[in-house]
């Protein structure tokens, strides 16, 4: 195998498989071959993370080694508030009762760890599709066909809604007056955001998501507080939307889109993205996960001086090149849109598929 290029997917139609996972084992409600909608709950887990340690010996007024005689529950038992856990003991008929609705998590050395139940965590599908796999306790894999645009940053939220493109040009700045009332509850696609007012305005309009090409990095703390998902397709600063992403999002204006703004964690195979489910008669292909560094591969430049420019590799050079910075780097000749044939460090290229 030769060198592999990092990949960003901007695909008009692909088979998309996504795993949805509970943070801890619970109950998976969806079944294989079941069709699900984005808002469907597909799994639940007791996720209260609130425990209460109960000293049974003290509660019963007995010695630690006597506790077992009076214990009437065991590990795993589900209890309602007030249910007797141990006892009665003696003339006063002392008992220890469940402090809340919950479960006996463990019993050890006269101490009982009680897991208080809160609202269960509900795992939603996040996108419409068909369940293709589940382990029945923790994970569900959903497959759909549609357009896929991978992003580089997300604020950690997810939602689904009708997508509305508000930018006319790939380098437009998002203005508050563009966020008109008719966009209420929509997934907004804009380009550059450099002002907090637009993020506040979007919250007031209860948008379901904000898809941007780039955003000023000093807006990160605010973006992370927003209740709706925000994804950046290109990065931070004033980077226009790449032409394939702009074309793809514009051509799907008015369709429903799932915005998954989970942070990019390469080691966990987790990346923010926008999925636009599309009905299709034919079976779409799964996206390529490996793209080799070789001529005729479509690439995008990740850094100045051609940051964001698209092109096609013409030649992978045998010798390193020295750049204006003085840095010597392995390089490729790339035919870049708008620039012609230029030399770019291979480290600064990604495949766009």
């Amino acid at each position, binding site marked *: *195998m030769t*060198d*592999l290029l*990092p*990949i960003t997917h901007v695909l008009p139609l692909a088979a998309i498989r996504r795993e949805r996972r509970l943070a*801890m*084992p619970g109950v998976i409600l969806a079944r294989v071959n079941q069709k699900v909608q984005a808002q469907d709950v597909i799994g639940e887990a007791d996720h209260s*993370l*609130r*425990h*209460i*340690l109960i000293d049974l010996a003290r509660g019963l007024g007995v010695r630690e080694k006597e506790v077992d005689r009076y214990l009437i529950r065991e590990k795993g038992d589900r209890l309602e508030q007030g249910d007797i856990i141990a006892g009665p003991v003696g003339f006063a008929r002392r008992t220890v009762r469940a402090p809340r609705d919950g479960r006996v*998590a*463990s019993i*050890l050395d006269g101490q009982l*760890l009680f*897991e208080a139940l809160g609202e269960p965590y509900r795992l939603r599908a996040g996108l419409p599709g068909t369940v293709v796999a589940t382990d029945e306790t923790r994970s569900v894999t959903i497959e759909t066909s549609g357009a896929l645009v991978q992003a*580089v*940053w997300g604020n950690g939220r997810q939602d689904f809604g009708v997508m509305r493109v508000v930018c006319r040009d790939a380098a437009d700045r998002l203005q508050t007056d563009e966020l008109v009332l008719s966009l209420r509850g929509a997934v907004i696609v804009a380009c550059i955001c450099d002002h907090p007012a637009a993020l506040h305005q979007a919250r007031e309009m209860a948008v379901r998501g904000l898809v941007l090409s780039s955003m*000023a*990095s*000093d807006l*990160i703390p605010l973006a992370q507080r927003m209740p709706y998902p925000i994804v950046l397709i290109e*990065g*931070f*600063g004033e980077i226009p939307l790449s032409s394939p992403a702009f074309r793809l999002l514009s051509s799907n204006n008015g369709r429903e889109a799932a915005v998954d703004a989970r942070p*990019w*964690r*390469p*080691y*966990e*195979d987790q990346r923010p993205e926008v999925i636009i489910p599309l009905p299709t008669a034919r079976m779409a292909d799964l996206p390529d*996960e*490996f793209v080799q560094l070789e001529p005729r591969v479509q690439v995008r430049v*990740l*850094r*100045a*001086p051609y940051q964001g420019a698209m092109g096609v590799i013409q030649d992978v050079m045998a010798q390193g090149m*020295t*750049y*204006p*910075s*003085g*840095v*010597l*780097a392995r390089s490729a000749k790339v035919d870049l849109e708008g620039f012609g044939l230029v030399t*770019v*460090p291979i*480290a*600064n290229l990604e495949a766009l598929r």
Partner: protein
Amino acid sequence: MSSIPDAETLLAVDVGSINTRANLFDIVDGRYRLVASARAASTAGPPLYDIREGVRQAFDQVHAITGRRMIDEAESLILPSAGYGSGVDVFVATTSAGPNVRTALAGLMPSVSLASARRLAASASLQVVCEISLSDRRRREEQIDQILAARPDLVLIVGGTDGGAASALMQVVDVVGLAMGLIPEPVRPRVVYAGNRHLGASVVDRLGDRAHVTLAPNVRPDLEEEDAAPTRHRLAETLADIRSAKIVGLQELRQWSGGHLLPTPDAFGRIIRYLSRIHDPDKGILGVDLGASRTTIAAAFEGELYLSVASDLGLGAPLPSLLEHCALSKITRWLPIEVRESRLRDYMYNKSLRPGTVPALLEELHIEYALARQLIRSALFDARVGWPAGKDSKSSLLMPPLEPVIAGGGVLARAPRPGYATLALLDALQPTGITTLILDPHSLTPSVGAAAGPLPMAAVHVLESGGLVRLATVVSPVGRGRIGQTVLQYRLEREAGKSEEGEVRYGQLMCLPLSSTEKGRLILRPEHGYDVGFGGPGKAGALREVTGGAVGLVIDARGRPLELPKDEASRRELNQKWLWDLSAVE
């Protein structure tokens, strides 16, 4: 110890988050020499998530350079060598790839045992995600909930002096035990116990079937003494287990290396400690490794290593964390050009998203070197907290005498000119007295550190063989003065060539041509109030056998601590001038 090597070829691999390096050493004239150095992209992350492909590509490059075949048809390392032209006799491996190991610390007193645990964690690239202690005011169940919410990969239990009281520590162990019982087995963290060694068996017994417990030497055997080195060694084995389970291919590297897969910072620290044992005991040794995912500061004084690994300071994914250590103005102060703070902040976040990219424009190179300076300064500031009081400088603003300083890491290694790396190190470290700056462009230091176990002489030979680049010998007088005031007079008598003499004024950064193979005698006569390390301010002296380096012999009379002009334009001009002074730019 025999100086005759008992094996012939040594192959060392270092798998990082951005690069995979392979260095092949062989015996030439009875001594180990670097014969090939290869670098391939790391494949620890997407799309492969399997380090073996990067390792194989690096092996292929070594094969292309030397003609020596490394792997057989079954994709296994040929070990030992199978006659001329294939395989190697010894294989060692180091790694810094993969996500940080999420760690919960449990101990007795936050300012005693937990403080030791924090330092241990810092030296072992652990990401501390929660802490519980005896003096914790939260209820025990709240502590349990905190451990559960933190989802650690490892729980490190410390506390108690050897033979000290047991019951307090066992209370903490019980909390850990209760939490372990609630975590499903497939994701249950490993437990390392490094507390009161008399309680080891009780801890294993108490945690029983709820956790896999590894016993390590007490990190703090008595109140006065902290002894992290043996603990760190034992901890490294557990970390290798945890990482091997998460990163595909590490297990194979462990097998090839006979189970000795070392964390890169540990191997780096080994060499710094070794050098400290053979160099001037009055001076410390400093190692700086500025990587994409962490910055390692290894200092050694009289053979004792003080290793600090800042996982939140790196020129890659963790870069935005630098802003938690300092303001943007602390970074822009190192720039020779005007860069808006918003542009710098955006650059940092973009670089964290694309850590493997390289600067093609001069402006971006300047930004990366400004970031490098501040990352090193921030990591150094944190590391010095753990240095011994008698060995560190009394003033936190001044560095103690160090000889030599060894620096590595991608950004320094790809410096377009040696002057770039030299000036970055001078600004970041601000050494005092007389110091040699050495650059490790091929990441040899971790390789020879890993080799020091199976082949101790290989480490000695390689360090002496010229695989490291001597950047400069630096004279840094300590003292305050006015710009233009005479700081010292010098006379350099070259062994084979003309002598030169002159004076250096306050604020000046002077570079005298002297290569790493040239020798000379350097006489220094500092003015009253300036100390160059000859026994006090104003004391003159001579270095009988001084050599230079790729940059030369540098006299840094800019003052210690270095004070930059407050006026931005003047400061940028000065930063540019210093680059010219060291021939970093044309």
